[in-house]
C-alpha cells in the first residue's frame, strides 16, 4: 500500500484550466495539489506564439504564459506534482486519485486533462510518424527546410501551423475536406495571401507511401471523385483533438466525443468532481476559455466544500 497524499482538491492537469483553478482554490486556502504528467502549460506549448490571449496586445510566448500561470498558482499555495493520474475512485467520503507515483485523496477533484491531437487513421500513418508525418509544426518544421510539405485541416490550428511552416518549407499544400475554412478570417487572409501556399479544397488524404521515409501521399478530391499522388517530404496533421478521458471512462457521463458532460457550474455527474478546459464539453478550445472554465470549476469547488462543512 502506497502512502496517501491527502488534500482538499486534486486538480488533474496543469494547463491553463488546471492552473487557473489552482490559483483560485489556493487563494481560498484550500490545500491544492495539481498533477501534471509533463510540463505545466499543456497544449499551448505546442505552438510558437499566442496572439489571442487578451491582455497581451503584442502577443506572448506560450512558454512564458504557462510559467506565469504556474508561478501565480504556486504563489497562493498550490503544489504541482509531476505525476500522471491513472484513475479516480470513491473512497468513503473522499475521492481517491491513483497516480503513477503516488496515491492522492481529496474532498473534491477538478479534471483538466485537456486533449491530444487526433490522427488521420490512414494506412502507414503510424509507420511514418517521425519519418515525415507530424502533429506538431513548431517541433518539426526545422526538419523541412526547403522541402515540400502538406498540412491537413481547416481550423485555426491547421492554418496557424501552415503559416508557421512556410517560414521553412519551399512549398506547402493545405488540404481541406470542405470548400471553405472553419478558421478565423484573419488566418484565412494570411493563408490566401501566402505565395508558398496552395489550397487543395474538397480533398482528403487516403494513404501515406514511401520506403524508409514518407515520399508521397494519395489525395482524393471528394467532389470530383478523383485520386492523385502528391510527392512531398512532410505531412502535418491538424484535424482536431480528442479529450483525455480514458482514465475516467465509466465513472462519469461523457458525450459522443468523449468529452465530460458538465453542468453550467462545471460539475460532472459525480458529486465532488468537476471538469474544466478542453476535456469538458462545450468549452471552446481557447486558452482564455479554458482558464475561465477552470476558475468557474474552482468557484464551484469552493461552494461545494463549504456546503459540506468543515
Amino acid at each position, binding site marked *: 500500500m502506497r502512502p496517501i497524499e491527502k488534500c482538499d482538491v486534486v486538480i488533474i492537469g496543469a494547463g491553463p484550466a488546471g492552473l487557473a483553478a489552482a490559483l483560485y482554490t489556493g487563494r481560498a486556502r484550500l490545500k491544492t495539489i495539481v498533477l501534471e*504528467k*509533463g*510540463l505545466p*502549460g499543456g497544449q499551448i*506549448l*505546442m505552438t*510558437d506564439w499566442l496572439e489571442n490571449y487578451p491582455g497581451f496586445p503584442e502577443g506572448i510566448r*506560450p*512558454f512564458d504564459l504557462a510559467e506565469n500561470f504556474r508561478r501565480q498558482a504556486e504563489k497562493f499555495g498550490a503544489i504541482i506534482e*509531476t505525476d*500522471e493520474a491513472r484513475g479516480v475512485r470513491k473512497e468513503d467520503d473522499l475521492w481517491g486519485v491513483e497516480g*503513477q507515483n503516488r496515491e492522492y485523496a481529496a474532498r473534491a477533484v477538478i479534471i483538466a486533462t485537456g486533449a491530444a491531437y487526433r490522427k488521420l487513421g490512414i494506412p502507414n500513418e503510424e509507420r511514418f*510518424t*517521425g*519519418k*515525415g*508525418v*507530424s*502533429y*506538431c509544426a*513548431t*517541433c*518539426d518544421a*526545422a*526538419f*523541412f527546410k526547403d522541402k515540400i510539405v502538406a498540412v491537413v485541416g481547416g481550423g485555426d490550428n491547421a492554418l496557424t501551423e501552415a503559416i508557421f511552416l512556410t517560414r521553412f518549407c519551399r512549398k506547402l499544400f493545405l488540404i481541406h475536406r470542405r470548400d471553405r475554412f472553419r478558421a478565423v478570417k484573419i488566418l484565412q487572409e494570411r493563408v490566401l495571401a501566402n505565395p508558398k501556399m496552395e489550397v487543395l479544397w474538397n480533398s482528403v488524404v487516403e494513404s501515406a507511401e514511401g520506403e*524508409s*521515409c514518407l515520399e508521397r501521399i494519395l489525395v482524393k478530391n471528394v467532389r470530383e471523385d478523383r485520386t492523385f499522388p502528391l510527392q512531398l*517530404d*512532410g505531412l502535418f496533421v491538424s484535424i482536431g483533438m480528442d479529450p483525455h478521458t480514458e482514465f475516467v471512462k465509466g465513472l462519469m457521463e461523457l458525450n459522443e466525443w468523449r468529452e465530460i458532460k458538465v453542468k453550467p457550474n462545471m460539475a460532472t455527474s459525480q458529486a465532488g468532481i468537476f471538469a474544466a478546459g478542453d476535456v469538458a464539453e462545450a468549452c471552446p478550445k481557447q486558452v482564455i476559455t479554458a482558464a475561465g472554465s477552470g476558475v468557474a470549476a474552482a468557484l464551484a469547488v469552493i461552494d461545494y466544500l463549504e456546503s459540506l462543512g468543515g
Partner: protein
Amino acid sequence: MSADILNVSDASFDEDVLKSTLPVLVDFWAEWCMPCRMIAPTVENIAETHKEKLKVAKMNVDENMKTPSKYGIRGIPTLLLFKAGEIKETMVGVQPRDKIVEIISKHL
C-alpha cells in the same frame, strides 16, 4: 539535467552509444520543442529508476545534425533504444512512462 543522463554529440555518439555495453535510450530533442520538454521529466525518471540496466542519453538536434539525419529522424521528440550498436526500438512523440518502460523492458 539529472546526473543519470549523458549528453551526447555527433562526435561522441559512436563511443557513448554504439559501443556501450549497456543498452542506451537516446532522447533526440531541441530547445524550441515543447513536447521535448514535456517528455523530459519522464526520461529523467526512467534514467533514475533503470540506472543499473540502461544508459540514458540526450542529443540536441540543433547542435548535432549528422546523427539525426543518419537515422532519418524528421520529428522530435524521438526516443531510440540502441543495443550493441543497433536500433531496437523507435518511439516518436510524447509517450506515457508506462509505455516507454514496457517497450524498453523487452531489451533489458
